[in-house]
């Protein structure tokens, strides 16, 4: 059993790049539309929510509400982008489009393919998060150069959420099942992680729960970096995100082996 699992793990540290490049090649053809979409989304959500709610709310945690929301949305957009890439596009490549099937006939292992897909989803998350950050920067909510620290965190956030979504992809019989993941996992996380209002507003038990959520850790890193405010427990937050990136990866490879290679 373990021997068989070991045989499908990534074969070397670079095999995944071929899978990433395949996805990049396909994406490149519609890159402009993708980038415009990535920019349009934050503009609408920040203007709509930020100014509308911002006028009523005023300041939160000692900063304007728009700044609070924008920094939360950077992490959220990375989460959403990585998740949707994995449960929709990756699922299609695994399932209907047979892209994985041809890759599995080569010297790539299943682990190489999964890793390449996760890296690709993380790249798209980085793109979406950076777009959100650029919009926030034009509004004056990105401090130079501390904002640069947010970039690797966005990529790590993307990787962690892609990795979590890969478990769902491995288990879902079809697209219809992804709705459970969105409504029961992602949406609650959005409200429990301090993306749209401070965690301190929550009842005590939910505040404790938020320590277990990857999005909360991501926001705790990105918000101080963007606004150049002191952030605490950096090592803890990064470690938490790393755990969410790594553990689900190994679990999903095992689940996908059972699904595709039995």
């Amino acid at each position, binding site marked *: 059993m373990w021997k*068989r699992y070991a045989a499908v793990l990534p*074969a070397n540290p670079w095999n995944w790049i071929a899978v990433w490049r395949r996805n990049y*090649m*396909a994406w490149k053809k519609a890159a402009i539309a993708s980038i415009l979409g990535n920019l349009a989304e934050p503009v609408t959500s920040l203007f709509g929510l930020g100014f509308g709610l911002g006028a009523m709310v005023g300041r939160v945690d000692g900063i304007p509400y728009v700044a609070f929301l924008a920094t939360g949305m950077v992490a959220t957009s990375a989460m959403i982008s990585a998740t949707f890439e994995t449960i929709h596009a990756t699922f299609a490549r695994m399932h209907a489009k047979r892209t994985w099937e041809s890759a599995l*006939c080569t010297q790539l292992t299943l682990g190489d393919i999964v890793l390449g897909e996760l890296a690709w989803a993380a790249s798209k998350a980085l793109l979406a998060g950076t777009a959100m950050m650029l919009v926030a920067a034009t509004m004056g909510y990105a401090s130079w150069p501390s904002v640069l620290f947010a970039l690797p965190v966005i990529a790590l956030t993307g990787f962690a959420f892609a990795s979590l979504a890969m478990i769902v992809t491995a288990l879902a019989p079809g697209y219809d099942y992804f709705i459970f993941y969105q409504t029961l996992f992602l949406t609650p996380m959005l409200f429990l992680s301090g993306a749209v209002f401070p965690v301190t507003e929550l009842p005590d038990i939910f505040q404790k729960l938020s320590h277990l959520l990857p999005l909360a850790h991501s926001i705790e890193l990105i918000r101080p970096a963007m606004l150049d405010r002191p952030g605490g427990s950096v090592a803890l937050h990064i470690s938490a995100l790393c755990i969410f990136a790594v553990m689900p990866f190994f679990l999903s490879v095992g689940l996908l082996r059972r699904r595709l290679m039995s």
Partner: protein
Amino acid sequence: MQLLTRANVSSSPSRRPESNPFKQECHGHSNTDNSLSRSKSDVAIELTNVSKSYGDKVVVDQLSFTITSGECFGLLGPNGAGKSTVSRLVLGLAPPDEGTITVLGEPVPARARLARSRIGVVPQFDTLDPEFTVRQNLLVFGRYFGLRTRELEEAIPSLLEFARLESKADVPVAELSGGMKRRLTLACALINDPQLLILDEPTTGLDPHARHLIWERLRSLLALGKTILLTTHFMEEADRLCDRLCVIEHGRKIVEGRPHALIDEQIGCDVIEIYGGNPRELTSVVGPYAQRVEASGETLFCYSSDPEQVRLQLRGRTGLRLLQRPPNLEDVFLRLTGREMKD
């Protein structure tokens, strides 16, 4: 590169491996020292008592066979006989429940990746990437084998030539005909300069022109010394290409041998096909003069070493159409697996 295009050599048993037309691109592998490690490199695939079940259904049942380097080995069987599962087992894409599999000297599935780096696969259903052009498909697939873009750009023109797709290099795959797609799949399977090709029904669904072109390409690959495991239920294909073949049914081996030896051994006489008339009644008329008589639908297959006698018995009957012919692999296949549809 002319080697590939001119190597339209007949599939006689005296094939000699010629020098390889594609540059040896795969890292760390060499298929040149055949003479040094003869015994090991002579066996391309070895299955020993392999079994595989899905739930209660036994798909492969105590199957053993050995494929020698440079030969074309056919795996024949009716739909659902377990042929595709055998391909998956050989590639390490499914673990066997029992038995051992060795492919190109590597234990499978434990070290299947290393075996796969020297294998080319033509799957039953095309897995080409519809988002890309012909050239891009080869590029993407080549990168899966760890090949560099520069190496691939050098190798792609000769592969396009081999697949007769030179003029289609920048055409999206979605615009190709079925035959072209199959040829591109074959070209993709050759991108890593494999020693072994696993072809799963490579010509199913193709028109005769496209099919003959694929067969000719496959023969030229055999002439280059490649080993082929060919899965098919197409008897003409097996007859034309295979040095040896094995018929399986319900995952079990029924018979194994050289095509013509099997025809002699299993049939060994002419076949008269009789159309029109009542098969049951005709059976009693020609039965005494035939080794065996089989009815399939409205056709009677009469195996007889004395066909003149059979014809004599039927003389004077109107509405009958007779076709006398030498036996072929299809007769062997149908004899072994039964003329009537089973499911």
